[in-house]
């Protein structure tokens, strides 16, 4: 029997990423170097953004036997029998591992480490992202060799698509026995977007040559907190101090310096409270500082208007859509102020009247029945939002402010009460405020969940498992929009508590 064997390559990609193009390039390269190439896929799925696998086998015809018999090539990857896995994204690399295609004796894994989030991750009402670090660790464990970096960034920087960057990474990592020129010739032969493709190819080639291990694509760049001339409460340190500084700056930007002082004044009592609690106290302090800042800078119409018309925002839009300097860009906003938002902006008394008075209510509701498209880049639209933004000076007298401050006072009170019992319980209550966010219905649903959890917990504060309960309740509340998971979780906890109570009663009786 002959010991000749093919080079087996699996490409895991999503529809529209050019996985098929990549496979075709590799076929062409193989064929031009004396290999018999076979490739196949299930393309119907890929067309519509689903995950799909392209599979290729390259057979060196130089190793053919004398008898004209052609090699039998496979149509799907066999675990343990794959030489090269190319993954267009980190979760797809994980999928290759899950399917057993990456084995330490054989497989070179070339993966872009950026994330394209799955629908499940996207639709979560809070943060549903999976743990990228674990996938990366698995890549390192399972592969014979790993070439991993953010290839999507390189593709985008060169105005190309990820397939060219993937090809560059394959070439640069010497995963296949072909010279660089062969890869470039394949790109050239396509005749479409050649220069951009070659640039992305070159960038990825260079990156893949670096021996450094893979790292996850950088997800976030925290802006360093700038200096503030406000006196921070004494006793703040570490993360809590950084967050408090950010919070004070946010409050000043949101309203004025007095508001920032107000923020710090509300935070101050917690510094003393946290002092004796050690590490947990610092965590509590940071969380309160964070949530208080977010709570005090609630998104009202004034804030939205102000953020929409800033010059920095105009610049950001241009760069986000990738507008060239010679292109004219117009920006239109989709806004839908309802009766509630309009009343909220009014002085508290007027606002309340508006919500009570039938005539005013009907009139405003009619006026606000449709969403409005405001062209911020036109003078008229800009002036409209400019006018709304300049209501800032009246904000402290507005109905919304009145309501928000009451809410925050109540929340701070609960956190304080909880802190007297247990630090982690207090951290939980500090985090609870985060359920209240967004606009309109979203905000109302958040308030409802917040209230439901507060009233559930009010009877259980002294329960030793209260911090754990609170944590699971918050997680459940963030699971779905309508609060079905929260409801189920509350039912479950109620049953648990009832059983525990019965147990205690039985013990006492015994």
């Amino acid at each position, binding site marked *: 029997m002959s010991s000749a064997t093919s080079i087996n390559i699996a490409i895991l990609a999503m529809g529209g990423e050019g996985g098929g193009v990549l496979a075709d390039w590799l076929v062409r390269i193989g064929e031009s170097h004396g290999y018999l190439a076979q490739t196949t896929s299930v393309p119907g799925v890929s067309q519509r953004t689903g995950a799909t696998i392209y599979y290729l086998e390259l057979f060196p015809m130089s190793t053919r036997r004398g008898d004209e018999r052609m090699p039998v090539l496979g149509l799907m990857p066999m675990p343990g029998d794959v030489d090269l896995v190319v993954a267009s994204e980190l979760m797809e690399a994980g999928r290759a591992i899950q399917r057993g295609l990456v084995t330490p004796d054989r497989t070179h894994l070339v993966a872009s480490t950026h994330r394209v989030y799955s629908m499940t991750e996207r639709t979560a009402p809070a943060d549903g992202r999976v743990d990228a670090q674990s996938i990366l660790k698995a890549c390192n464990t399972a592969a014979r060799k790993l070439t991993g970096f953010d290839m999507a960034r390189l593709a985008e920087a060169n105005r190309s698509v990820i397939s060219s960057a993937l090809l560059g990474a394959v070439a640069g990592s010497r995963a296949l026995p072909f010279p660089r020129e062969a890869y470039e010739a394949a790109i050239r032969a396509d005749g479409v977007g050649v220069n951009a493709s070659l640039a992305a190819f070159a960038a990825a080639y260079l990156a893949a040559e670096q021996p450094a291990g893979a790292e996850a694509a950088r997800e976030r760049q925290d802006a360093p907190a700038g200096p503030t001339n406000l006196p921070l409460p004494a006793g703040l340190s570490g993360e809590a101090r950084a*967050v408090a500084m950010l919070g004070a700056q946010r409050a000043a930007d949101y309203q004025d310096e007095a508001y920032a002082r107000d923020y710090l004044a509300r935070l101050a009592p917690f510094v003393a409270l946290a002092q004796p609690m050690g590490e947990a106290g610092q965590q509590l302090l940071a969380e309160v500082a964070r949530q208080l800042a977010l709570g005090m800078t609630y998104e009202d119409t004034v804030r939205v208007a102000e953020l929409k018309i800033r010059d920095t925002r105009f610049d950001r839009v241009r760069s986000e859509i990738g507008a060239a300097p010679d*292109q004219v860009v117009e920006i239109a906003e989709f806004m839908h102020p309802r009766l509630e938002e309009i009343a909220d902006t009014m002085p508290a008394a007027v606002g309340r009247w508006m919500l009570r008075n039938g005539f005013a209510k009907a009139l405003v509701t009619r006026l606000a029945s449709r969403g409005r498209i405001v062209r911020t880049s036109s003078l008229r639209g800009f002036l409209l939002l400019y006018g709304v933004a300049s209501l800032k000076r009246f904000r402290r007298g507005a109905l919304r402010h009145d309501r928000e401050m009451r809410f925050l006072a109540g929340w701070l009170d609960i956190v304080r009460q909880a802190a007297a019992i247990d630090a982690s319980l207090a951290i939980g209550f500090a985090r609870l405020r985060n359920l209240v966010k967004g606009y309109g219905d979203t905000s109302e649903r958040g308030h409802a969940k917040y209230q439901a959890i507060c009233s559930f917990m009010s009877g259980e504060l002294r329960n030793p498992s209260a911090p754990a309960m609170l944590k699971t309740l918050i997680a459940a509340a963030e699971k779905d929009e309508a609060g079905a998971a929260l409801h189920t979780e509350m039912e479950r906890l109620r049953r648990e508590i009832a059983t525990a109570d019965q147990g205690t009663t039985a013990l006492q009786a015994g």
Partner: protein
Amino acid sequence: MAERSFKKEVELLRLGAGQEFKGEGILAVTKALLQSGVNYVAGYQGAPISHLVDVLSDASDILDELGIRFEMSANEATAAATLAASVNYPLRGAVTFKGAVGTNVASDALANLSSSGVTGGALIILGEDYGEGSSIMQERSHAYAMKSQIWLLDPRPNLPSIVRAVETGFALSEASHTPVMLELRIRACHVYGSFTARDNVRPAFTMQDARSSPRRATDRIVLPPASYQHEREKVEQRWPAAVKFIQDNRLNEIFDGEADDIGIIVQGGLYNTVMRALKTVGLADAFGETRVPVYVLNVTYPLVDPEVLGFCDGKRAVLLVEEGQPEFIEHAINTILRRAGAPTRCEGKGMLPLAGEYTGAVVKAGLVKFLQAWRPDLLPASAAAANAAVETAMALVAPNVQGRPPSFCTGCPERPIFAAIKLTERELGRHHISCDIGCHLFSALPPFEIGNTVMGYGLGGAGAAALASAEGKRAIAILGDGGFWHNGLVSSVGNAVFNKSDAVQIIIDNGYSAATGGQDIMSSEADNRQRATRNTIERAVRGVGVGWVRTISRTYDLRRMRDALREALLTATKGPKVIVARSECMLNRQRRERPLMNQRIKAGLRTVQERFGVDPDTCTGDHSCIRLSGCPSLTIAPNPDPLRREPVTKVMQSCVGCGLCGEVAHAAVLCPSFYRATIVSNPSRWDRLRAAIRNRLISALQRRMARSSAAGARA
């Protein structure tokens, strides 16, 4: 076909004798048809055989030269009935459609065709979309082959074998007066390979010949007593003739090996997978040289008894690798062995899973199990060893890998229809929703999760029939334009009229048979030289007697879409309510428009494009917008605000500016974070002047605001 050109593929169809054909399996089949002197071809599109009809649609020159009639059939029943031309005349005909679903629709015609028997070769090319990513139920065409007694070819998945199967398929059909099915799995249809071409053949007996001197024979018509005679013919004449042909022409193959007390019997289509499994345990090489004998069934129905018995002779056990269930071949082989009193044991579904795709890993596991039971000495020690590193890695990824099913494309006009249904549900509560087959069925998946049942192509309305009475909440049925013309006009809409149904039927008209690759259908807007298009769905629906019809000509108008739906659900009008929701399939629209747009920009002409975006500083990371839209270009991104943890919503560069996210934000009163950017390339002088004036004034105001805000922050 409207928006895609297959010119390159058409060129391959012109290759002559001795030239090398390099391309996909299904295209090789198309070429093989021309080499076989086919007179007519018909088909209904669907994965994985769409390419055959697509390429022929673009190949009218070649078809004309060879005198071939080509039809894009209304459905698979039409396609199968087209083969009637081969009953009386020596005309070779081929039809193609998806395996399981196609044979289901075509079964009436298939049964009658095989009863009558054929004079000219009749080939039915079936694309088996079985296993990974398939959107159809997992059934076997094999059952149809058996019940109608149509022979079933399942060739090895390489181009020369596939081409040979087409050519011998016609001959087998003619020799046995029986239609023949050629079954091709999805990967075989899409496999890229090569074969040596032959010249195309212009048939000697033409369609013209048939029409000018029609022949008939009463005994070929399915009517007693002829139909009783057909049944006897099938077993007494046609079956033996087929078996003889298969044997004489060696359609099945045996690869000998030294371990001859065991063997493997495999469907031709799975041969490569079996050989790879043998190779990984060191029992075969890359060229198919094997230590274990292998009997390849390139014809899986009928089986050739002497061949089976000959292969099994002297073997203690054979492993039968047969994908899908029920295990028809296993039953048949056991019957052959037992009737002959042969002692060989046939191991099949006892070693391999009863259901599911036979992937490499599955086949290898079954093979190892078989060898452990019958010849453990052949197995290397490493064959079953688990790898600790792989298992650690698998455990690490398990909780972090999520399914990524296909979904609506970026900018898909069907998405707003389902967003409208969701919004209506918020107001009027949930309704029973009967779905149909097509892209629109992605509504069943997150984020929409809409729909209760699917009963078949064009059967959305029919699936709601029992629930269509006038009391209480109305049921909703969904149909696509593809399904509507396939069968829905009669089975769903006509039926609803006749039975005074009260249900609401939404017919989604995207201008193409989109899910199968964007083919034109009766209501397509495109100009098509070969087909009659622009027959509107509204006219058809009114023609069968629907009184309440609303056509929404821009589905992205979410308010109108929602209002029409609300009206349909609440109106006092009796009888079926039909909403025709029309907007062009975005995939095909982009195929047409994007190159034109790029040309315009390159040529320096003023061009306006739209894109959407989200302001990260006003987005609070709740993602309601994603739950109501599900657009692939709408994603999440790390929050740039260090105070917030939730990822923000972000619009990717792939946005085509359909406008749905803005509409959703408005209609659902979500949040003010969405913006629409209008980008003017090569702006006119007026554009530039206006922008300059605006920018100056706006900049002045922005500076003023920054000053007063800074003053406030300092105050």
